[in-house]
């Protein structure tokens, strides 16, 4: 089975219910979109993530009622370096959408989505712990997996696999 090429043209994808909901919210708010391997990815600006989550949760066509996962990818040494990745599931439509936020090395701050989805509590702490991303407005942003006095963020690409000796 050969892989179908990824579709990145927003015009071709605008019928996808999640993307349609976001385009209806704001045409400029959607930075880019990609449909690859049956999965929808939408890039939005960091400052909008709170609003995007609320739009996806509350719209009628594609109600994403469940936050599945929050994680991060480090693209060191290219810029913007980090991508915070949110996976949202619509239990009614049985489909999920991936929202991504790009962060440049200088400004590793993104608004916390815990007010929209309390389930983001632990995973945001994990991303803070392992990548050093600050979540503005998180109620309890402290290290969760690593010891409190740990220095550095282990899942960054410039952190050696065997650790610092």
């Amino acid at each position: 089975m050969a892989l179908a090429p990824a579709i990145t043209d927003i015009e071709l994808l605008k019928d996808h219910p999640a993307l349609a909901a976001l385009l209806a919210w704001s045409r400029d708010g959607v930075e880019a979109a990609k449909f690859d391997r049956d999965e929808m990815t939408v890039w939005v600006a960091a400052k909008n993530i709170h609003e995007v989550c609320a739009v996806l949760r509350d719209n009628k066509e594609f109600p994403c009622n469940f936050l599945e996962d929050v994680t991060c990818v480090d693209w060191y040494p290219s810029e913007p370096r980090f991508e915070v990745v949110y996976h949202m599931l619509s239990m009614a439509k049985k489909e999920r959408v991936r929202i991504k936020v790009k962060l440049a090395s200088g400004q590793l701050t993104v608004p916390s989505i815990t007010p929209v989805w309390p389930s983001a509590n632990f995973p945001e702490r994990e991303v803070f712990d392992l990548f050093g991303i600050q979540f503005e407005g998180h109620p309890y942003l402290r290290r969760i997996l690593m010891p409190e006095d740990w220095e550095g963020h282990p899942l960054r690409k410039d952190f050696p696999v065997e650790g610092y000796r």
Partner: protein
Amino acid sequence: MGNLTLAPNIPEPGEDRTMILNMGPQHPSTHGVLRLVLEIDGETVIRVLPDIGFLHTGIEKTCEAKFYQQVVPMTDRIDYLCPMSNNLCYVLASEKLLGLEIPPKAQWVRVLLNELTRINSHLVWLGTHALDMGAMTVFLYCFREREDILRLFEMVSGQRMMTSYFRIGGLALEPPIGFFERVKKFADRFPTNVDEYENLLTNNPIWKGRTKGVAKLSAEDAIALGATGPTLRASGVDFDLRRDMPYSGYENFKFKVPVSQDCDVYARYLCRVQELRESIAIVGQALAGMPEGPVKADAPKVVLPDREKMKTEMEALIYHFKIVTEGFAVPAGEVYQSIESPRGEMAYYIVSDGTAKPYRVHMRTPSYYNLQVLPNMIVGRLLADVVAAIGSIDIVLGEIDR
């Protein structure tokens, strides 16, 4: 007459009467190394803070330094009670990245072993959960059947717990001769065993007293806090990834999804016991309809060749050498593959940059999210209910800390 204190000065209830109680990380009923910091007022829990990370081994980081096929044994170690589910989720994600088609027999064997894993995991849960509440016998019964399942795993993979039996592109080996007959024997007998557990617990007044109406979790809270699996379904949300977003050929199987509206520990118990029965029914269907054919995909650059072929064919030897020494390149992209593990939604998010090593592997583990509901369940309840609540969400700390 000595110093008799007839009016001891005990403070009135109020702010300063609470105390901080440390529970764990070595407490047996926290099912691993979970530490809870509890603020209690007498016997009532006022606040609770789960403290995790004691088992953190950096598996996600280690995966980035391995070839795709070398990650499979790492995934067993995440959750030692359902290694097959983790194997399956990882290989499905990798196959989706590669665009590989898996032969039907491999898919059916995967389903069969996954349901056995579910039974295995639920048996350990039932045994230890009952033991926490003082019911010793159930534990012994459950481990008797679990031993049979572990023997089946040993027969098929050579390992009792860390199976690593699934490979990207199919299975490691054809199941051995006589394996399906032994599974059949087990599947025929197992429903009677479930009756035995139920006889001990389902109508037991002590069990009901400890579990009914305890650690309530409403459907809204369960969704808002990210609970999945039996914890979610016992709160009345009818969602099961096997049925609603089928993977690995689950659309070919007929099964009921147990749901309860009672939202308490007893409801979670009933849901899981019903799942035991449904799982063994799926095992029966898989055995009855087991297709014939190969157990590995026809993709010589990804799947290791047969040993016999390597002795006679030059090509096979070359492919073997290439895969073992330099892995196989995976087209750039990203996938999020979720499955219904015994504890809930298990998912792997894999990012590929086009090389032979995954750029990023992230595991969305069900216990990690299920643990978030714990404070919601136990605040305002008695201290003794904390143990019941922890048992009922069925957490595995290896999976939480990774």
